[in-house]
């Protein structure tokens, strides 16, 4: 097989850099108290979303967690709508009501943004069931962290998807920690792919820092799910470079461990390859950063310009029927 083209690599690079710079800006805006609540950054894990999203069709469904900025952006949710959501403004992709942990864009089949660990898995099974019953060829990609594997909802959902042979691609982002809990203090058997296979579905581990390995595996898995109609499991071995959220003293891991992993920064790895292959010069990263920064500046401006929702709207969308406040 011939290596990836310069174009593919340039796109993957741009995708990862966009997410990286976007979130670094979010961290800054959090300090400036423009963003509030919990903010979970994906820094270091960008290759997972950047490699997976291109493998999906527009009609496929995506279900994420509270660490989903990258997934939303790379699914095509405009950076402005994502930033406006973080600012809690009406032009946010969830009308400003959800914030960082609850990004939604059903027009793009992006079903959130779920802040209950494991809570999105049953939804993914149901979305896939609907596609099956309506004879739609779509599949559902469900992202979750390795910490979710200990939840009962993981187990029930894996079994149900396998039992009913539903088109769900389970995307486990194994970044080795659930908040401060290392995988081996959460799972008796840390080989998650083996565990997944015990439900009777194919499971592939993949280097989550290598966007091209991710892309190749994701394509294979998506094709398998679409053709077989049944589920598959992908374990992305990755790492979170930053704190779990903005309030994390990181007592649970050594700086040296973080440093080692930072040495495998997915963006650097790709740039190196591109340079080696003569597909780019060393300062390609700087150029792309400049490009995306312009996009991010525009997003921040857009968000800043967007108004707050009128507080009288508080009860709208509790029910479809506005008159039915359902309560008092």
């Amino acid at each position: 097989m011939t290596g990836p083209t310069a174009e593919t690599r340039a796109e993957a690079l741009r995708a990862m850099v966009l997410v990286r710079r976007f979130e670094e800006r979010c961290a800054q805006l959090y300090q400036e108290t423009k963003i509030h609540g919990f903010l979970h950054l994906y820094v270091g894990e960008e290759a997972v979303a950047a490699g997976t999203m291109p493998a999906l069709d527009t009609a496929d469904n995506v279900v994420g967690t509270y660490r989903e900025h990258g997934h939303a952006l790379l699914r095509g949710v405009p950076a402005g709508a994502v930033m406006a959501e973080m600012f809690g403004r009406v032009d946010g992709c969830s009308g400003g009501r959800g914030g960082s942990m609850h990004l939604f864009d059903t027009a793009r089949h992006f079903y959130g943004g779920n802040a209950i660990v494991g809570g999105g898995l049953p939804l993914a099974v149901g979305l896939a069931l609907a596609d099956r019953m309506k004879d739609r060829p779509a599949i559902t990609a469900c992202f979750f962290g390795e910490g979710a594997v200990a939840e009962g909802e993981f187990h029930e959902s894996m079994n149900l998807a396998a039992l009913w042979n539903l088109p769900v691609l389970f995307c486990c982002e194994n970044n080795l920690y659930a908040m401060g809990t290392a995988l081996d203090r959460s799972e008796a058997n840390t080989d998650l792919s083996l565990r997944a296979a015990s439900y009777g579905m194919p499971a592939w581990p993949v280097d989550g820092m290598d966007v091209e390995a991710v892309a190749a595996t994701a394509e294979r898995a998506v094709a398998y799910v679409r053709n077989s109609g049944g589920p598959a499991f992908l374990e992305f071995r990755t790492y979170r470079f930053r704190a779990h959220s903005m309030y994390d003293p990181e007592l649970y891991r050594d700086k040296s461990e973080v440093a080692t992993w930072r040495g495998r920064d997915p963006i650097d790895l790709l740039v190196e390859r591109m340079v080696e292959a003569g597909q780019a010069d060393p300062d390609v990263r700087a150029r792309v950063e400049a490009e995306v920064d312009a996009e991010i500046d525009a997003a921040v401006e857009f968000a800043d310009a967007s108004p707050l929702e009128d507080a009288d709207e508080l009860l709208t969308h509790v029910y479809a029927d506005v008159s039915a406040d359902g309560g008092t």
Partner: protein
Amino acid sequence: MSTMTGRQAMRAAMQAALQADERVFLMGEDVGRYGGCFAVSTGLLDEFGPDRIRDTPLSESAFVGAGIGAAMGGMRPIVEIMTANFSLLALDQIVNNAATLRHMSAGQCGVPLVIRTTTGGGRQLAAQHSHSFDGWYAHIPGLKIVAPGTIADFRWMLGPALADPDPVIIFEHGGLYGADGDVPDTDPGIPLDRAMVRRPGTDLTIITFGGTLPTCLSAAKSLATEGIDAEVIDLRSLRPLDDATIMESVARTHRAIVVDEGWRSVGLSGEVSARIVEQVFYELDAPVGRVASAEAPLPYPRHLEQAALPSVDGVVEAARAAVQGDVARMAVPGRR
């Protein structure tokens, strides 16, 4: 008009819904091959096949969550949870997802899901199979909670529940599956959220729903023999509550008691009492009374279980107290 049991009425309702709308399907534990734990779905598998009558594994959280996802995906699932007690295993999906998705997505994610579950005691099934969480669920914004108390409602509430764009939970009292009742042959078209006066009266208002409706109607009969003319209101919908119907009645009778098979504390009976006080306090000639289940897990032996549940005698007594407890007589210093 035809006569049937609650079981037959709900089966007919599901059959009609499945025939009318191919987006509708039934999913739950033993709804198919077994014929339904309480024989409600018997026969549906043969008519509609395993795709639309789906037996699930014992995975309450996953199959309820799958119902939510399927509803978001354009289906109209009826998810059966064998008894309300087991619904606690799916509560994360119901409260954190079904009830919040539309609001936190600013209207993007509607969840047109119907959950059916069996509620209530009286069948000596003990502390893990007998509890009534109907009123408790009514605390949660984003959910609609209904509880049929007549066989006609067993037949005709499912339609509007499925037509509703939001998640509706139907609490079916196990004691009514075997009860007979008259059922109109065509949809009477009563809105899902409307309470109904089941017996008009002038002396006090008895407010109830579900399994205790028959209890209250019998109590009203015996109260009539002692000259007390009780009005009986069947709430039907616990969330939202039909305040208008309640207040109109209490403003006429000036006295009210609330009867609920759930536990008393922080239950539906307290909510109805509080609303009456908020809305028609100055119409009240006596405190609002409550009849609820004893605050204990329901025990197995019949005599203890019956002692714990609302009874006709208990309702009659509470009604008497409400009627006698008029301000003039009770506001004497000695009573303070």
